[in-house]
């Protein structure tokens, strides 16, 4: 029997803001090698779930473990590549080249007042190449298209050599063609580099065939093994608040 260690564990996690409950008693586990999606209505708590995972917000109850370690004792944040929701929205005048942005992925791994090592340079080049942004390396990040910026942000996340990639609503402000290319990239990273993937989306159908686990979040959490099981689940309609149909369309 093959053993898959857990990457993330939520134990009875709740989160409220000024008495307003955003998430209630969430229990879930993401295992190494999984390719997971989080879906749910706007305001249902999807982004909150990710923010709690990344330590950006503190749960009001419950515990979170990362790589088997209590979150408050966890230090190896470089193992998690994080691309937040608004990452493609960059100020057009911000003085940062593509290479400088990708290099940020190495910062947490380098010591204080350290210069880029040969290994750092190699990994930065490799990450840019993998995301197909090497030829843009001297361009300002703010001068790129939404799709290109998205790939740069993924390259930055990859530069820390993560074991898992967390992407929050990757398609915000991105055209349809770029969306498809993006999902191809995620698939490729999962298959070729063995990186576990966890992302928030509204379009499960596009990636339905690849997902190993689907989380449905609307204040509470419902876990299903496959999107097909989720489609059949009457809970979706109940949790969305109105009758819903999920259409799987293969590409």
């Amino acid at each position: 029997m093959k053993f898959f260690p857990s990457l993330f564990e939520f134990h009875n996690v709740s989160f409220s803001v000024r008495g307003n409950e955003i998430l209630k008693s969430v229990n879930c586990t993401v295992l190494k090698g999984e390719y997971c999606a989080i879906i749910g209505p706007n305001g249902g708590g999807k982004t909150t779930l990710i923010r709690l995972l990344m330590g950006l917000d503190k749960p009001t109850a419950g515990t979170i473990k990362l790589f088997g370690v209590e979150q408050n004792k966890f230090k190896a944040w470089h193992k998690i590549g994080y691309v937040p929701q608004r990452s493609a929205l960059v100020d057009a005048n911000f003085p940062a080249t593509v290479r400088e942005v990708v290099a940020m992925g190495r910062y947490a791994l380098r010591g204080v007042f350290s210069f880029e090592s040969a290994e750092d340079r190699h990994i930065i080049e490799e990450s840019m190449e993998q995301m197909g942004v090497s030829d843009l390396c001297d361009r300002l990040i703010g001068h790129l298209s939404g799709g290109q910026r998205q790939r740069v942000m993924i390259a930055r996340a990859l530069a820390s050599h993560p074991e898992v990639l967390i992407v929050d609503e990757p398609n915000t402000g991105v055209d349809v063609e770029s969306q498809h290319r993006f999902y191809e990239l995620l698939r490729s990273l999962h298959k070729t580099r063995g990186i576990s993937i966890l992302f928030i989306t509204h379009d499960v159908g596009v990636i339905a065939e690849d997902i190993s686990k689907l989380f449905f979040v609307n204040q509470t959490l419902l876990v299903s093994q496959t999107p097909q099981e989720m489609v059949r689940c009457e809970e979706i309609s109940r949790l969305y608040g109105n009758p819903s149909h999920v259409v799987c369309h293969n590409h």
Partner: protein
Amino acid sequence: MIEMLSYPFMQRAFAAGLIIAILAAISGSFIVLRRYSLLSETLAHVSLVGVSVGLLIGSNPLWMAIVASLIASWMIEYLRSVHHLYSDSILAIFLSGSLALAIIIVSLAGSFNASLFSYLFGSILSVTNEDLAVMGIAGTAGMALLLLFFKELYFIAFDEEVARASGIRVALLNFMLVSVIAVIIALSIRVVGTLLIGALMVIPPVAAIRFGLGFFKTMLLSIIIALISVIVGLSASFFFSLPSGAAIVLCLLLFFIVALVINLP
């Protein structure tokens, strides 16, 4: 030029001005990119409270300015990061509040208007050896901190959330940055003056950003603009008997206009 540098007061003014120019351009780059430009203006007004208290009680105004500026910077950062108040609102409150306090102290004392004028607009005659020593020590410490955490501060300026998620101690570094800026501003008042130091921090990076370069080149250009402005401004102050701060700021403005014209959209 050589004659100008033969005067000890000019040597001190140039030494102080060059230290301030480099520190202001580096730290200013971070606050400009974080849309926090008014911080320098606010802390400059707060440092005026320290100067007023120093003159009133007969203590070194420079030390008092550093203390007042540091305390205010921590309060501002605390209100911003812990209480999540809007940055511009907090800065507006501290700016007007500190100016009101400084005016009350000055009017109560009523006897040091001439000295205060040099703190408001800068004076090349006012830099003493003691001031220079304080600038050297505090300036070196400030520069060391900025260089030690340079890449982390850049990451935070670009994307504070991802920097925090990467394990970078954002809250601590934010407090460190505002503390260094508070000290730099307090140190600058002898040369540039409290009312004009904001320009030395903000204009060089804003002008440099217009050239559309990467961060490291932008910062280097920003330092060059600040250095040239200080050298030209201090020289103009010597030759034409102008307040040094005003001369430096006019020079900075010239750079800004040139940067705008060269890089018209």
